[in-house]
């Protein structure tokens, strides 16, 4: 048995004359189309709201992190300044002043030889 198309009351009232042709022909999925469109819009609205909320939280968290990072990088820069200045003070003359000196006698061993292995530390 052929299923009968269900149409709305308003559509029933339309004079489906031939003059308007396709533009005024009945659209049997009108209800479903509007329902689907409405559902999609609802989902998009909720998703947008969620995204905006997440974005706010993300930006707020990042603001705090950026601030922390800047403070830490400034502290690191100060430490690096001190480190580089101290490093320049480590010179041969400083080492000599501490009692270091060049070895008086050197013995050279071939890398990987038995003698070198025996003296390896």
């Amino acid at each position, binding site marked *: 048995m052929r299923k009968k198309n269900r149409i709305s009351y308003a559509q029933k009232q339309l004079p489906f004359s031939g003059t308007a042709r396709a533009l005024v022909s009945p659209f049997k999925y009108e209800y479903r189309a509007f329902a689907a469109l409405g559902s999609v819009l609802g989902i998009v609205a909720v998703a947008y709201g969620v995204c905006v909320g997440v974005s706010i939280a993300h930006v707020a968290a990042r603001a705090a992190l950026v601030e922390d990072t800047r403070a830490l990088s400034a502290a690191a820069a100060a430490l690096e300044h001190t480190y*580089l200045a101290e490093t320049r003070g480590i010179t041969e003359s400083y080492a000599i002043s501490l009692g270091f000196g060049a070895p008086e006698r050197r013995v050279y061993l071939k890398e990987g030889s038995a003698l070198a292995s025996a003296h390896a530390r």
Partner: protein
Amino acid sequence: MRAKFIFRIRIIAILLVLCTAGMLAKLYLVQIVHGGEYREQAENQHITPSAHVLDRGTIYFSERDGSLISAATLTNGYTVALVPRAVKDSALALSVASDLIPDIDRETFLAKAAKADDPYEEIGRQYSEDIGSAILAAAVPGLEAYRERWRSYPGDELAAHEVGFLGFGNGTELTGQYGLERAYDAQLTKPTSGLKINFFADLFTNVGGSLFGSDDGPGADLITSIEPSVQAFIEDELLLYQREWNAKTVGAIVLDPKTGEVLAMASRPTFNPNDIKNARPDVLANPMVERVYEFGSIAKPLTMAAALDAGVVVQSSTYTDTGSVQIDGKTISNFDKRARGVVPMQEILSQSLNVGIAHLVQKMGADTAKEYLSAFGLTEETGVDLPGEASPLVSNLESPRTLEFVTAGFGQGIAVTPIAMARALAALANGGQLVAPHLGIELKYPGGATRSIGWAPPRAAVQPAAAEVTTRMLVEVVDTALKNGKAKVPEMSIAAKTGTAQIADPVHGGYYADRYLHSFFGYFPAYDARFLIFFFAVEPVGAQYASDTWTLPFKRTVSFLTTYYQVPPDRAPITTAP
């Protein structure tokens, strides 16, 4: 009638759908395609204080073990200022300010505070977090502290010419003015503040960039090959040299001849990029890349390598040295004008004989000599990643005469940058392969992504055999000739050569009789070189020859690098088990 009404409703509905589609398309264009431009415009209007906060990638030195130390970074602090019309008790404001800032000028401070209608008078900038926080905590009416961020250079003068500095130049934006700051300005620049105030814009910002690409880079950190301890050592050596010999300009380069990575590059006089307002303008340019010099006899090994490569001589070849020789109507003489008789090729380098070089160039011919000068990169810029590289002055090589190629063969008559000469000499240490000298190794982007900086692959200047024979001859120079062999290091093969060049007189033409440029280069371990060291000094006073002024600094540098990098000896007498 009713049909007409329905028809119109449908038409209106279709128009509405088209309008919506149009608006969506426009939103797509505005927010995604052109989002970056609109965001910049909007932020400039509404969040100016945030957008103008300096944000820029860090430049790093690379230590021996691969750890990174900032060469240029950002520092946070405060600007301290008065709002005179809000000051109620200037004595109290002065008391609080002077407790925290001892060097404050009291009279100037009170004069500024007395300008009753003035909305802003700056006391000072770049104060520490502690000082700024204390001023804010004191809450003295009219005494304010504003957050500030500035570029700082933790090494002060360390590699100042190479790192460069930020400045306004001729514009209103802080940009790199010299050195790596300028060469990598586009990569280091972060186009927007790290913190977005408009989170809607933030939502779409990265979508557009990632989908469609953007001309604005995200702002990267630059990792360089400069090793801070080697750099500091070299700078100390240059300081000692300048004090002892009172040279107008001194410079040095330490590079890895196999990769072209510059481990240290320094010159004096120099400046402190943290105190750029007190720097002499004439010392800001980097002489290692922005000046050209005639380097003299350190070019002789290049000529020797070319002659060996061209096959016109072999190491055991001899020639008759007459002390001077006429070429194209001009006399070319040895430095002491003394004849040596029949001598082997080794003596050309060991005794630095100009007549020997003339012999080699004449045997090669001008065209071949020119080809080799080009092969060693002396007729072009090196492409080093530092700004303002000078072009070599090699117009003499257009001459049809042999004379110009003879003088070029011993380093006179053509002028090149120190980095170009160091690169050419590095080819001898690298089996004849010419590398691209560079300081930048890697760009590190936010989020952890890294990109290696690509450099031109090595190209052959001479065959490996020619480079090896030349190296052997240069080792002999160090072991027997340089300071009569006193520069020899028994356990390490070192190849080196000095250069003493006359300095051109730009006013009267010709050369000064009493002004010299001293240069020195060497590499070690000679047959598997890890380091090439290059020194030069303009007009040192008190010694005529480069061997008198540079031998000791060179030896100390070799000793330092050997110890610091734990370079094993390559020719030491081996102790065997009894």
